[in-house]
């Protein structure tokens, strides 16, 4: 697919830098309003719930951000979470000690991620199709492992560790923050992070600059698998229940959080803090609506609308600004297009009227 994507890459829309900032502002605004208007939102106890709701989405969104920035996608994350949870249940039922089970689950996640990575980088298949396949496969295997049973009675020392608080702060808060900062640093302030953006924006240019595209993407998938499995362990411990359908559908929430945070689905653009804000906004909305006794359906609608707004707003702003400028400055109408470079060959400088866009998580051919 490398051929096709490079040739037919849709117009790179100039997202207004700052959608990520808009999301952060929206998040702060929402937190303030919710704390003032929703009873019990600002309490420490509620913070605990908020963090627990946030943990799986944010955890998986961190590596997913990197994956999407390289121009790929991983839809199998929630199934990996489910399979990790199911495996945890099966092993606990089988009498293994929890200290052995958790590392094995994480290892399983790494292997599942490696399978995705193998298909995408070594066989060069489109990641959208591959991970829809493994989405079904991993969830199916979870059912095979545990059926529709639920395994409970995990040691309370572990479940309390996940759900408990220390010095008034939820136990998961600090590790989450540290991980988010670590991912932000890697993405925005290291050579590796730069090369992720480069391969997302131009896979050929990346390969010609000596960036190991296939290898990097492979390890990103492995990392995503491992973190999804970790989320599965946390999920199981939080609810003290291992089930094959744990986290079903979470992949959409994660992708929504990543896109809401301003990451371009075409790769090459986005910030980690935008994604962190996007994920937190989703979790806080969910939390506040529950407290306010608004049906969770409202959350579904709001999530969808936010997601659409996150991609349309920058484009709309881009279209409106020149129109306003034109009205102010009179006759010479500036266009939204960038000025022409070079003799633009028709294939690479798409005309302004192009409307067809692709879900284009491109894939690298192994080099």
């Amino acid at each position, binding site marked *: 697919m490398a051929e096709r994507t490079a040739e037919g890459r849709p117009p790179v829309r100039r997202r207004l830098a700052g959608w990520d900032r808009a999301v952060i502002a929206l998040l702060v605004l929402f937190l303030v309003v919710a704390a003032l208007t929703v009873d019990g939102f600002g309490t420490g106890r509620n913070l605990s719930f908020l963090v627990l709701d946030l943990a799986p989405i944010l955890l998986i969104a961190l590596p997913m951000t990197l994956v999407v920035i390289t121009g790929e996608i991983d839809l199998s994350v929630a199934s990996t979470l489910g399979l990790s949870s199911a495996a945890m249940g099966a092993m606990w039922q089988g009498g293994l000690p929890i200290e052995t089970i958790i590392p094995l689950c994480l290892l399983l996640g790494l292997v599942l991620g490696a399978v995705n990575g193998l298909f995408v980088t070594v066989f060069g298949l489109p990641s959208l199709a591959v991970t829809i396949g493994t989405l079904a496969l991993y969830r199916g295997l979870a059912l*095979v492992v545990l059926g529709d049973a639920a395994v409970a009675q995990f040691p309370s020392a572990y479940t309390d560790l996940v759900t408990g608080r220390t010095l008034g702060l939820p136990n998961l808060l600090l590790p989450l923050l540290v991980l988010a900062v670590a991912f932000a640093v890697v993405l925005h302030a290291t050579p590796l992070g730069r090369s992720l953006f480069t391969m997302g924006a131009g896979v050929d240019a990346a390969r010609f600059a000596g960036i190991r595209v296939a290898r990097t993407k492979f390890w990103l998938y492995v990392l995503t698998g491992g973190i999804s499995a970790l989320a599965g362990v946390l999920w199981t411990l939080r609810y003290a229940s291992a089930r094959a359908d744990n986290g079903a559908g979470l992949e959409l929430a994660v992708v929504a959080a990543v896109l809401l945070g301003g990451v371009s689905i075409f790769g090459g653009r986005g910030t980690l803090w935008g994604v962190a804000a996007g994920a937190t906004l989703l979790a806080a909305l969910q939390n506040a609506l529950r407290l306010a006794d608004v049906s969770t359906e409202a959350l579904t609608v709001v999530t969808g609308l936010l997601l659409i707004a996150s991609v349309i707003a920058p484009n709309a702003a881009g279209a409106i600004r020149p129109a306003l400028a034109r009205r102010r400055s009179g006759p010479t109408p500036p266009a939204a297009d960038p000025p022409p470079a070079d003799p633009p060959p028709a294939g690479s400088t798409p005309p302004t009227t192009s409307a067809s*866009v692709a879900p284009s998580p491109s894939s690298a051919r192994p080099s």
Partner: protein
Amino acid sequence: MTAPEKAAAPTGRTPDDAAASRVAVLLRARELGIVLALGALVAVTAAINPRFLSAQSVRDLALGAAILVVLAVGQTVVVITRNIDLSVGSVLGLSAFATGSLLQAAPGTPVVVALLVGTLVGGLCGLVNGALVRFGNVPALVVTLGTLYVYRGVCFFWAGGQQINADELPPAFLAFGTATVLGVPWLLLIALAVVLVAGYALRNYRSGRELYAMGSHPQAAVLAGVPVGRRLLAAFAVSGALAGLAGVLFAARFGTVDAASGTGDELDVVAAVVVGGVAVFGGSGTVYGAAIGALLLTTIGSALPVLAIDQFWQGAIVGALILAAIGTDRAVAARVAARLRRREAHHG
């Protein structure tokens, strides 16, 4: 084509053409492959338990497949334009609930009207998707992921937790769900008609060819004067309308409709389309392939209990099938490309 594929111009082009016609053969073989897989599955299952081919069993299978086939046809129309419609499951749910509510309120409504209303509701949802993609100038994956949530949420609001049961639906409508013409269920006939009409139109009408052109090379389609905006709206409207139609079929077949109808169907549909050989990045594939893909997935579901395989294996098998399908397509394409390259290098 990242780098222009270069070759000294061959003036006698026979080797090229031979390779090219082989491409055509392989493409045809693509649909043949799924048919063979389906045939093998049916044969093995029937050999183990002949009752798998009993009239009742086949009819159940056909009824089950009909809905997925209709959805897969709509999805194919969108996917060949290099887009995707993830909202179909939610559209199905919304249409099913809308139709159910209508029939609940006005039990005298003829079935045809119910079908039209459901299709119309779906078509409107599809138009919204298309308009967002076209005028918002944003990727279909994101838009339809968003409307997946929105349509489902609207459906939940509307339903407010209530469920429409079979005893609240007019008997004529429920009868339609199982009725047959010359032994063939109505649902299957409708699905077949949808497949044939869509397949014929995509192959034999300018607008159909233009959909392929848009998916094959979007910028070239614009330069060739294809009205891409209108075609895009139409493709999404068709996908939505067929999801709406599938919603009515769903209500008729199951008789019970709640706000969660069709949840998660989008993945089954995309799976059917991919297994059916429609390229995820547009430009190639047929509704026939997608329909057979849908039939194959449904058959797997019914064959498992007959083969005494745990029902829990179904998801895993579907997943493995998707991977096998895209892997095979890739391998075939790579071999053809290598052969073309070698021939051009030698004869060019």
